């Protein structure tokens, strides 16, 4: 299944990679030259090749996060030449192809940088803060088996489509890495908007946005100051409009909570 000899023009680059042995260890950049680069190769495939070379030389290979290699699982997470997920719009690191670079390029590769995402090793960061935000409220409470017939709940197509735009989030954290405030507002807004657009999501709407935003703050993420770097870096190009939508929800929920204390807060029935 190996392709025949290629007609493509091969070239050389230098990878300047952040190496860090552990969360507390100091880190530094190290240069790795790479020759015979095929333009059809993915950036992560080049890292594979470089790593195999390092292993044979008895050096530690570069640790990097990856899995599906088709831009949907959200595992890969490098900052390439200063941009989370590298050059190109609407793609994850695993979808960066070497044809985006030229012969002789020095490619700077770093982990996502944000205080709530501590470095685990080399290019791998700990993004479990996102899971904790989800655990605080990123759901509609529905016990398995208790759901009504699906078509009993009509949803206008426009709402469903908009919810799908938000739901496309892959939880990679590029929005946080791109933001000078390390804000997770795009990530949180995407989930809050998706669930808030459905009739099913109304009973917990207030509770959800308050809990998710509260946890986001507690995890140490910063605030949004309307630079929109998040949307620009997002591999799914999720719109920052959802942040405005979340802010509205948050404000309304805060007011409702302030003026309707106690009973309304129980069982998520405030909506």
């Amino acid at each position: 299944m190996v392709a025949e000899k290629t007609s493509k023009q091969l070239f050389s680059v230098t990878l300047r990679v952040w190496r860090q042995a552990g969360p507390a260890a100091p880190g530094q950049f190290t240069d790795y030259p790479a020759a015979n680069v095929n333009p059809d190769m993915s950036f992560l495939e080049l890292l594979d090749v470089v790593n195999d070379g390092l292993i044979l030389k008895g050096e530690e290979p570069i640790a990097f996060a990856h899995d599906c290699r088709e831009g949907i699982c959200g595992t890969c997470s490098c900052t390439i030449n200063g941009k989370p997920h590298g050059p190109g719009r609407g793609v994850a690191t695993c979808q960066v192809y070497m044809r985006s670079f030229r012969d002789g390029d020095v490619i700077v590769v770093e982990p996502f940088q944000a205080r709530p995402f501590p470095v685990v090793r080399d290019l791998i960061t700990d993004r479990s803060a996102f899971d904790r935000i989800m655990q605080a409220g990123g759901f509609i409470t529905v016990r398995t088996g208790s759901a009504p017939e699906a078509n009993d709940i009509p949803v206008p197509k426009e709402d469903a489509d908009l919810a799908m735009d938000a739901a496309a989030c892959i939880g990679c954290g590029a929005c946080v890495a791109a933001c000078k405030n390390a804000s997770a507002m795009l990530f949180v807004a995407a989930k809050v908007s998706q669930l808030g657009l459905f009739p099913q999501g109304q009973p917990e709407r207030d509770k959800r946005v308050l809990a998710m935003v509260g946890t986001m703050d507690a995890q140490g993420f910063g605030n949004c100051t309307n630079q929109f770097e998040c949307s620009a870096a997002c591999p799914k190009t999720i719109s920052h409009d959802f942040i405005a939508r979340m802010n509205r929800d948050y404000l309304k929920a805060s007011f409702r909570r302030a003026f309707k204390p106690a009973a309304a807060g129980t069982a998520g029935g405030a909506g």
Partner: protein
Amino acid sequence: MAKLESKVPSGPLADKWRRHKAEIKLVNPANKRKYDIIVVGAGLAGASAAATLAELGYKVKSFVFHDSPRRAHSIAAQGGINAAKNYQNDGDSVHRLFYDTIKGGDYRSREANVHRLAEVSVNIIDQCVAQGVPFAREYGGLLANRSFGGAQVSRTFYARGQTGQQLLLGAYSALSRMVGAGGVELHTNSEMLDLVVVDGHAKGIIVRDLITGEIQRHAADAVILATGGYGNVFNLSTYARGSNATAIWRAYKRGACLANPCYTQIHPTCIPVSGDYQSKLTLMSESLRNDGRIWAPKRKEDARKDPNSIPEADRDYYLERLYPSFGNLAPRDVSSRAAMRMCQEGRGVGESGLGVYLDFADAIKRLGEAAVRERYGNLFDIYHEITAENAYRQPMRIFPAVHYTMGGLWVDYNLMSNIPGLFVLGEANFSDHGANRLGASALMQGLADGYFVIPYTISDYLAGQKPGSRPSTDGAAFQQAEDNVRAMTRRLLGNKGGEPVSHFHKRLGRIMWEHCGMARTRAGLEEALRIIPALREEFWASVRVPGSGDTLNQSLEQAGRVADFIELGELLCRDALTREESCGGHFREEYQYPDGECKRDDEHFAHVAAWEYQGEGRAPLRNIEPLNYEFTKMSVRSYK
């Protein structure tokens, strides 16, 4: 010899599941919290099971090797999920979905399991909609459907080209809720490396923390594996790079039977290979076949020409020609083999000659580019990223690739393996798809198993286990299993050979693809069974795994997985050799009709082959579970 009792309930097919649910032993609600259940894997099957079992009150420990449960490869499924809702009024029913699945599986699955799957399919859609899964909708606000992969009704629900993602995130939401509520203890970056069997029952696992390297023991009253398929035995596949068979393989080595490993699915519409460095193959959703037309040039000389310059008369729309009633929607195995034949005839396209065209020119003419973009835009974008070609202007190049494995650990009707207390869900088990899986049925099965089957059937086992009888992790079985894991880690790290792990994975993949891929022969399989053991020896003699075991070490993780794949590859070839017939994804060149279609041998092979490990260096035992077709007539699977 393992006892393989399918435990299929008696009575009419349509009543079996209802009666079984009514008769199954229950665990009293106050006692549920006294039972610990380990769930390994958090894809559709694992996450839905963990969430639902926790909702019921069991104490669940969820283990994933990813950094988050949202990463599982279910997320990459594009096309959709089947359900017998009959919203389209086009004649669908539970029975028809059942029948299509049985026929699609080439009469090699268990009737009762498949009927149950079709029955609960409708509940899955209700559940997911209630969770806020953004399925596609009509303007009236009701759910939309499309027809998909070999079905003559529109029963597939979808969320653009990201159905798997949306269903997985729904299950992940449910799981997250239960983690937040304290019902699930979540262990991320944790890889299961052994199963612990105490007095014949599965009572725990050994886990390596992938960040710290710590080896941990975890005990439970029951263990559920939902760890996916083993397609990466071929190295190049549409699976995620991390997808592996280690959990099911180590369970196999503890006595769980592995059934029908030779049933592997090759998906017809993937982006062709571009070079030796390639790490994975990317699927182009089968939904594309609803509007795209597949063709190859009629003449070899045209194979390298610009496709747009080849006139209509010189194109061979071979699926439409060979299978007029199904045309471009012919099932996956049939379409894949047809593409392979085109390439063998020298009519394959692209730089490697391993490709055929999937053409949207007619669809664009008929519907307009905007409508095509609306339906498939994200897929066209993916194609463009990878190939730098614009599929709105020139046809896509596609080629088959390994995509799914129908085989897996043997389970009974309760989804319990032959080791009591060990349950297996989703792609990791063997039960529902027979020799070939239909499109949009994997998501259905994963969620059926997790949301609607295991929550009932596990109580049948647990009711027989005294609450609080769970063994301590200090016991001899835990010690032995931990020693086993530590010994393997030491052996891998102690090796200072001259080749990286990837070298062996690539070589194994080439052997498997060449000798046990789309078409298999006795001679080829015998050759594979000769060279795979040699590869295994070479692996252990000359693999090089850098670093240490007490820290994050991706080479070590990969080495363990590839070591298992080499052994599993051998078993897969052995299964393919002994199954002297063609059925579904298992095509033996010796057994075909003159037109190249699968020739089943129902007299000798209408059974499940469940392989039982006999120890290092000894041939595994081939156990048989006969397949009794009480309600459907086995017929030749024709799509003409």
